[in-house]
């Protein structure tokens, strides 16, 4: 038995036909948020090629791609509100620690057509898997509240599963459109690409990009956290000045 396993392993190592690699790229590695920012679309594209150094000239599909785009982590709570003596109050609350603030799964086909559910579970690709990973024990059912958290974030456009998000332009070249809404959190993003062939994962690759404020918006964001007292004083001074100016301009 062990001999057989070793033989298979050896066979897999020397077999050049299975050696594909992914070459991926994001259209921009930095998304700048300026005063007129109202969301943006990035293109993620890639090509499937023979492994570097192999003698193979071309690769043969059919291939499937799953791209998972993950935004910076946040601690989030989901709550259930129920009537208690006639007044609605939050009765259940579950904390999801280090949950992605943005989580989109783009694929070239319906996920269960690409690979088995066991593989999807193992890779934690579905948003529900992420919720299960992040849920902390608390007052409430983590499974139900996790599902509801995913639903709320999907309505907001921060979570999504799109089985037509990856489009093959040729047998080996694909492109995926990643749409970032206007209320996108800032920070590091990760686009993880999985390459599947006949239901098996054969290659994967990560690309990062950053969403950050630039110019005046960046200055304000930094001032509010770096110099909060000064920032507050400036806010008050601005308010007093605006109020005074309004009184002067409109005085008759």
């Amino acid at each position, binding site marked *: 038995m062990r001999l057989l396993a070793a033989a298979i392993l050896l066979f897999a190592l020397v077999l050049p036909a299975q050696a594909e690699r992914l070459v991926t790229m994001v259209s921009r590695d930095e998304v700048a948020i300026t005063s007129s920012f109202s969301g943006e679309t990035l293109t993620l594209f890639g090509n499937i090629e023979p492994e570097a150094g192999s003698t193979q000239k071309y690769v043969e599909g059919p291939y499937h791609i799953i791209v998972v785009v993950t935004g910076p982590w946040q*601690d989030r*709570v989901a*709550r259930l509100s129920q*009537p208690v003596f006639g007044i609605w109050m939050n009765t259940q609350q579950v904390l999801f620690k280090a949950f992605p603030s943005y989580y989109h799964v783009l694929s070239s086909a319906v996920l269960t057509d690409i690979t088995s559910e066991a593989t999807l579970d193992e890779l934690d690709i579905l948003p529900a898997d992420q919720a299960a990973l992040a849920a902390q024990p608390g007052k409430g059912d983590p499974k139900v509240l996790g599902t509801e958290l995913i639903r709320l974030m999907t309505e907001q456009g921060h979570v999504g599963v799109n089985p037509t998000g990856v489009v093959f332009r040729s047998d080996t070249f694909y492109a995926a459109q990643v749409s970032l809404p206007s209320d996108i959190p800032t920070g590091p993003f990760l686009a993880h690409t999985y390459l599947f062939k006949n239901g098996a994962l054969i290659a994967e690759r990560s690309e990062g990009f950053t969403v950050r404020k630039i110019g005046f918006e960046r200055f304000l964001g930094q001032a509010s956290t770096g110099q909060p007292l000064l920032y507050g004083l400036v806010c008050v001074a601005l308010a*007093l000045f605006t*109020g005074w100016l309004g009184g002067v301009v409109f005085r008759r």
Partner: protein
Amino acid sequence: MQIYLPIAELSMNLFFLVGIGGAVGFLSGLFGVGGGFLLTPLLIFSGVPAPVAVASVTGQVVAASTSGALSYYRRGQIDLHMALYLVLSSVLGAFGGVATFAALRSIGQLDLVISLGFLVLLGSVGTLMMIESVRAILKRRAGIVVREKLPNQHNWFHGLPMRVRFKKSRLYISVLPVLVLGLCIGFIGSLLGIGGGFILVPALVYILRMPGNMVIGTSLLQVVAMMSATTILHAVNSQSVDILLAFCLMVGGTVGAQFGASAGKYLRGEQLRALLALLVLAVAVRFGFSAIVGPSDPYSMAVVGLGGVP
């Protein structure tokens, strides 16, 4: 035209922000209140995160109250001595309010307390104002001359120890009720994100028996000072004051307030009070509705912090 709000981390329409600032400013100029109790729920409903809405509206209330306070000051209608006591105690109350705000947020009952707080506060104040103004309107219809209450009638708590002479208001009363009033206003105001002008004005008239010509100016100055302090507290504590959001609201608010003030000249005092009572009751009903009938979606979510490594 979209404008990106760097602290709220979302972009909103500039004209919408200036517009709601102007509309609420118009009402605040008309009725002589800060308008925070309208603006905060409006912003939350438009998708601004609740902490950012509460903190940024405090900045807007400062601006909206400043021009009014200045014009009353020029006319000599502010009792600075009384305002000093009110401001000092209300800033203390604001510390308590901001701390309670943070504590409630962490146990997840902030929404409920804000809803119930608005319901009880606005409901009772609105009902009282409504009864009082409808009575005044009916009396005027019937041709009865309404005699203003004498300002110098004393209550039992005016005679408590630590009496102080307030020259401008022609009062010689204990400072204890003044300080308690300031503490309560500071606590409620910072907890609910409102200036508290609509509580302070009746309290000064009916509890402290302050003369009518001093009430509005003193209340406005107190709101400016207390909300300035609350803005700084929020900026330091939760870092959720969005200066761009506040500025858009301020610009609309100060312009709207001027138009509101001139429109107010065409309405009589009791009619104005009846309209304000209607408005206050409407907001109270809105909050009561969500607490008793329940939200449209029983599930909700909130970001409670930046995530570290899991």
